[in-house]
């Protein structure tokens, strides 16, 4: 419902925005305007995720109010962020994993697809790399004892 309302409002004001942009001589393809749109979407998505995670509309409003009244990143520096479920080692694992994905993605875009590179190797190399990847997932994956699966973000999706 949240995104339905946002998207509907966006469609409704689109013509108005186009008209306003042309009158104010704003180039909608220019970087500043695009950056503004990215920030706008980021805020809408973050607020949306907060609303979806709240137990009710009133709780969501209260959370938003507290965010506005007590802004800050103290939990990142006083250590309380580590008491929410991920400890420092988990965060390292997530960071290294994300960096690996970014690196492989960048290599795939600028040089050669890692999949193609693997396909050109012999079966022994492929098997070793596959088993290594599975072992990394088995060891560093979030599953098993003490792990509670996070609720789906968008309703039942």
């Amino acid at each position: 419902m949240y995104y339905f309302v946002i998207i509907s409002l966006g469609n409704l004001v689109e013509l108005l925005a186009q008209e306003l942009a042309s009158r104010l001589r704003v180039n909608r393809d220019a970087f500043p305007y695009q950056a503004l749109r990215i920030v706008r979407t980021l805020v809408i998505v973050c607020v949306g995720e907060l609303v979806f995670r709240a137990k009710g509309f009133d709780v969501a409003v209260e959370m938003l109010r507290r965010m506005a009244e007590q802004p800050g990143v103290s939990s990142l520096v006083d250590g309380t962020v580590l008491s929410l479920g991920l400890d420092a080692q988990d965060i390292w694992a997530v960071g290294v994993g994300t960096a690996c994905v970014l690196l492989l993605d960048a290599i795939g875009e600028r040089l050669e697809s890692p999949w193609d590179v693997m396909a050109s190797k012999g079966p022994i190399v492929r098997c070793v790399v596959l088993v290594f990847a599975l072992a990394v997932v088995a060891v560093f994956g979030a599953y098993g004892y003490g792990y509670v699966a996070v609720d789906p973000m968008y309703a039942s999706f």
Partner: protein
Amino acid sequence: MMRRIRCLGVVLLLMGLLLASAAGLSVVFMPKDNRAECGMVEPVANGFLGEREHSIDVLFVGDSEVYRAYSPLQMWHEQGFTSYVAATAGQILPYGNTLLSRALENQSPQVVVIETDFLYREFSLGDGVFRFAQDVFPVLEYHNRWKALTVADFHTRPRATWTDDYKGYQPIKDVKAADVSDYGAASDEVARVPRNNQLWLRLMVRSCRAHGATPVLMSTPSPVNWNMAKHNGTQLVADELGVTFVDLNLAREEIAIDWSNETYDAGDHLNHAGAVKVSRYVGQLLSREYCLVDRRSDPAYALWNASYERYREAGL
């Protein structure tokens, strides 16, 4: 032809590498002692690993109903047989089977009491398969130990030096009265034990018999979790398996639980006062029916007397 042989070779290579790496990692990731600080999962329920070999006469398996209701040290003091409660909160049958299998590696219990509350706790086929995989490759259970690995983990053999002083019993003395107006209402309905659960129960019963232990199904008094339909369903399964079924919910006069004072969560679980009554009744029943040996004066079991002294000193 050559292509097929080559494919087969690659598949065998892959399988071999997978099995070897899983086995190797399992050796490293296995906790090297059965203490919580060594990474043991559910250390209290696994405390039997630290008991002297072949020293446990009765093993209790099940969920929280079990560790709140059966006190091995009280049964030791009153009847003289040894027992251990291998129970965890919300336990599902595959994990019960795991605990039973672990216990039967080093113990030879005469009786295995399988509490029936978890016969009705549903789980997926995947839960069972994953549990089996964890038993074969412990790295899947203890993988989170990567944060605590030391050099010693690569060359030390696992051992078990710790046991729970209360032998798995976890007493609570709080009181929250239960509404028992519907407790024990007669019914011809039959709540069928789910097929998947029956399969795992069958495995457990077979394991018990293969190791010379007598399996016994037992329902702990609980107005919240028990009803006559479940009794009928459990009786049906017990008859099919040829296993004795003891329903303590029907022994109301003999055990005489006071539901206004002897439960801490309104009839879901017993508190310590209720557990004392149940342990007394069950201790007598097991001792009588299965001719359990009184070991109280056996010097080999002196540690049990010491544990009981600490139990008494704790006001239990």
